[in-house]
């Protein structure tokens, strides 16, 4: 997994690529919880390059979302591939996370 932190028109974006699994999710958690500690909002996560996610990756995002909700932060997911969307839907998380097709859709919401 590769993580890039991008500043897009003043919005912090975590751009992920590759596999998010039990091996890589601690690194993701470190970056995400750093944002939470700094009360970043909104925070976008760009999923376009993600090829795989397991329950440890999902748990990391649930933890991040809960942390952000504590200060009214907005966590927005962008460009989730179909396969990963299916996993989110099965876990009923498609109704929990804010999910958008494009960065513009997320920014304009």
């Amino acid at each position, binding site marked *: 997994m590769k993580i890039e932190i991008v500043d897009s028109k003043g919005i912090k974006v975590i751009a992920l690529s590759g*596999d998010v*699994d*039990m*091996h890589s999710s601690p690194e993701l958690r470190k970056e995400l919880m750093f944002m939470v500690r700094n009360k970043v909002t909104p925070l976008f996560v760009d999923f376009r390059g993600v090829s795989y996610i397991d*329950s440890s990756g999902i748990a990391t995002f*649930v*933890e991040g979302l*809960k942390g952000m909700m504590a200060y009214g932060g907005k966590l927005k997911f962008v460009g989730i591939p179909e396969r990963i969307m299916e996993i989110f839907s*099965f876990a009923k*998380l498609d109704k929990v996370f804010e999910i958008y097709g494009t960065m513009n859709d997320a920014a304009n919401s």
Partner: protein
Amino acid sequence: MEYAVITVPSDPKYLSVIRSVTAAMAEIYGMADRVKEDVKLAVDEACSNVIKYAYRGDAGQKIVVKFFIKKAFEVVIEDSGIKAMPEFIEGRSLDDVRPGGLGVHFIRRTFDVFAFDQRKKKGNRLRLIRHRREKDEDRDRGQ
């Protein structure tokens, strides 16, 4: 019967190896891509559980994963860690949104059999079996 056996260290960085072999065996079985992805995720979750619970995060142990292609697709995962207590293995309610507790759901939705072999003296032997279903067929290859 076709089969493959891999032994990897109980280090999370080897989960990608387990996923690759799982996908390759599912391909040989002739699974559709979507099903192959489900199987890959389920086996990954089962092996992650071995690392987390049987070995308590000790990366220096061994996980043996055996794949058998018969009428059904069978995966046997062996470790020599702490005995699982199957009666307490339960995922969280999917309506209860909190970190953790999803892995078991991913395994159970994919495999028809999820059973620990109680005859194994030390460690665990988890047997996962998926019987062939109509949607398992590799439609991408027109089979």
